[in-house]
C-alpha cells in the first residue's frame, strides 16, 4: 500500500544551493524566503514538506514540547531484502540522515496554552511509511493521551504501510485504530491533520478517523494510487482528484487550513472541548 514515493519539493541543482524550485508553479524562490515562509511557495501557496521538528516548533509554545517514546526504533524482523538491498540498511541510513529513530516523532506540549499530545510523521524517513515502530509510537502516544485525559493530534505524511515489514506493517493499521477507539470511548478529542501525502494504509486507518479531519492545501490524500485506478477503470481522472480540496468537496474533511494558521486553528477548536 506504500505506493507513493515521489519527492514533494524538487530542489534545483545549483552550485550555491540558494534556490528552491516550486514543484507546483515552477517558480524559483530564494531558499531563505522559502524557509521564512514555512516551506510554502509565496507565489502559489504550494505547501512543501517540512520535518517533524520544524512542525513541532511551529505548533508548540516555546520550550513546552517534551518528546516521548523516542527510544523506539525499527528492526528487520523479516530479514527483507529486495533489489536495492536490505531493509536494515535502509532504515539505518534513514536514521542517520534524519536524526530521528522512526517515521514519527511523539510527545506533548502546550498549544497557545492548551496541553496536547502529538504524533508528527516525517516523510523523509522511508517515505513516512507505517512500520511496527511507527505504529507502536502512535499507539503509545494515544495511550498517553488516554491516561492523562489530553487531546491527541496526529500529523500524517506517509505513503502508506511499510512493505518491508509485510503484514506486521498492515497490522499497525488495526493497532493504531484500537488506540483511537479507546479515545473515542473516553470522549477524548482526536484531531487528524492530513498533510502531503497521506495515502494507502495510513489514510485507511488513523488518519481518516479524526473527530476533526483537517488538511493543508493541495495535499494528496488517497487510498489507491492514481495510476492503479486509471489502469483498473480505463478512464482519465479529474485534475483535482485525491487532493484536500476534492476530499473537502466530498465530505471527508472538516477544513483546509494554511500552515501559518494551523496553530491558532487547533488551539481554537480545542478551546471548545468542555469536559
Amino acid at each position, binding site marked *: *500500500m*506504500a*505506493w507513493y514515493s515521489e519527492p514533494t519539493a524538487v530542489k534545483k541543482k545549483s552550485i550555491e544551493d540558494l534556490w528552491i524550485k516550486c514543484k507546483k508553479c515552477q517558480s524559483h524562490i530564494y531558499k531563505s524566503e522559502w524557509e521564512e515562509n514555512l516551506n510554502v511557495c509565496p507565489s502559489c501557496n504550494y505547501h512543501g514538506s517540512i520535518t517533524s521538528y520544524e512542525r513541532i516548533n511551529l505548533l508548540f509554545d516555546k520550550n513546552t514540547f517534551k518528546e516521548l517514546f523516542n*527510544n*523506539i*526504533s*525499527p*528492526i528487520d*524482523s*523479516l530479514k527483507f*531484502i*529486495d*533489489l*536495492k538491498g536490505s531493509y536494515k540498511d535502509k532504515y539505518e541510513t534513514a536514521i542517520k540522515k534524519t536524526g530521528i529513530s522512526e517515521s514519527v516523532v511523539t510527545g506533548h506540549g502546550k498549544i497557545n496554552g492548551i496541553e496536547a499530545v502529538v504524533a508528527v510523521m516525517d516523510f523523509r524517513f522511508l517515505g513516512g511509511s507505517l*512500520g*511496527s*515502530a511507527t*505504529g*507502536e509510537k502512535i499507539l503509545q502516544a494515544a495511550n498517553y493521551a488516554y491516561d492523562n485525559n489530553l487531546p491527541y493530534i496526529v500529523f500524517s505524511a506517509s505513503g502508506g*504501510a511499510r*512493505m518491508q*515489514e*509485510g*503484514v*506486521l506493517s*498492515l*497490522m*499497525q*493499521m*488495526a*493497532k493504531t*485504530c*484500537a488506540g483511537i*477507539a*479507546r479515545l*473515542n*470511548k473516553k470522549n477524548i478529542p482526536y484531531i487528524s491533520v492530513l498533510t502531503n501525502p497521506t495515502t494507502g*494504509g495510513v*489514510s*485507511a*486507518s*488513523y*488518519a*481518516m*478517523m479524526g473527530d476533526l479531519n483537517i488538511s493543508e492545501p493541495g495535499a494528496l*490524500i*488517497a*487510498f*489507491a*494510487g492514481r495510476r*492503479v*485506478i486509471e489502469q*483498473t*477503470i480505463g478512464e482519465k*481522472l479529474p485534475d483535482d*482528484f*485525491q487532493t484536500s480540496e476534492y476530499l473537502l468537496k*466530498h*465530505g*471527508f474533511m472538516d477544513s483546509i487550513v494554511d500552515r501559518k494558521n494551523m496553530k491558532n486553528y487547533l488551539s481554537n477548536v480545542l478551546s471548545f472541548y468542555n469536559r
Partner: protein
Amino acid sequence: MTKNKKSISSAWDVVNISRHPNRPILQDYLSLIFTNFVELHGDRYYSDDLAMIGGFAEIGDQKVMLIGHNKGKNVNENIERNFGMANPDGYRKALRLMKLAERFNIPIVTIIDTPGAFPGLEAEERGQAEAIAKNLTEMASLEVPVICVVIGEGGSGGALGIGVGDKILMLSNSIYSVISPEGCASILWRDAKFAPDAAEALNLTASALHKHGVIDEIIEEPGEGAHTNYEKIAESVKSSILRNLEKYINVSIEELIQRRFEKYSGMGKFSVNN
C-alpha cells in the same frame, strides 16, 4: 518433482493455490457448513455491494452473523461481484451488520477472500479509506466475539477491513499480505515478474504469519489444496470456528474488549533502547 503432503512449498506455490480457479469460496462454505442463512442487504447509504455479503446464519448449534468477501465461480459471477473487491458500500454494509450482531448479542464470523479493496474512482469519491478505517476502529471495541477466517486471498487493507477479531484463522494455503506480490515486485524490484521473490520476502503464508504472531491458528488443507476436497476442508473450517467460538462463552464484555486491545497492542516487532 514429487511432493509429500508436508513438503515445504515456496511462497509462490502457495500464492497460486490460494488463487486456484477451483478453490472453495464463501458460497461453497455457505452451502456446506452454514444453515438458515438470512441474507441482509445494503449499507443504508448508497448501494448493496455484491462483493461483500452477510446475514444471520447458523453453524452447528451456534447462531452467528456471517460476513464475507464474495468472489464468484465463473467470469459472469465475478463481474457481478467485482471479483470480491468491495467498494466503500461493502465495508459500510459489513459494519452495519456487525453493529446489528452486537445488538442481537450473537458472535460474528468473517470470511476473508479478496485481492484487495476496489481501486476505483467512485471508491475514492465515496471514501474507501474512511470506510476501512472506520471498520478497524469500530471492530476494536465490538462487544461480541469476532472470529475471522482467511480462506483464500487476504489482500491488504481490503482484507483487514473485516479482519479485526479475537481469533484469526487461516487455511494452510491461503495468503495474507500488505501488498500483492506483483505490486510489491513492481515497486521494489521494478518489475512484476519478480513476484515470486516478493512473495517469499513478504512472509505472506499462513505458516510465516503464525510464526510472527499475526494469526492464531492454521487450518490444514487436504491433499494438494482445499480445491481437492471441499467436504473435508469445510468440516475442518466448521470445527475450527466452533472450537474457537466456545472459548468466549464465559468471557465478559469488558474482558473480551481488553483482550482484543492487548492482542492488537502486541502486533509488530520493534526495538526499545533504554
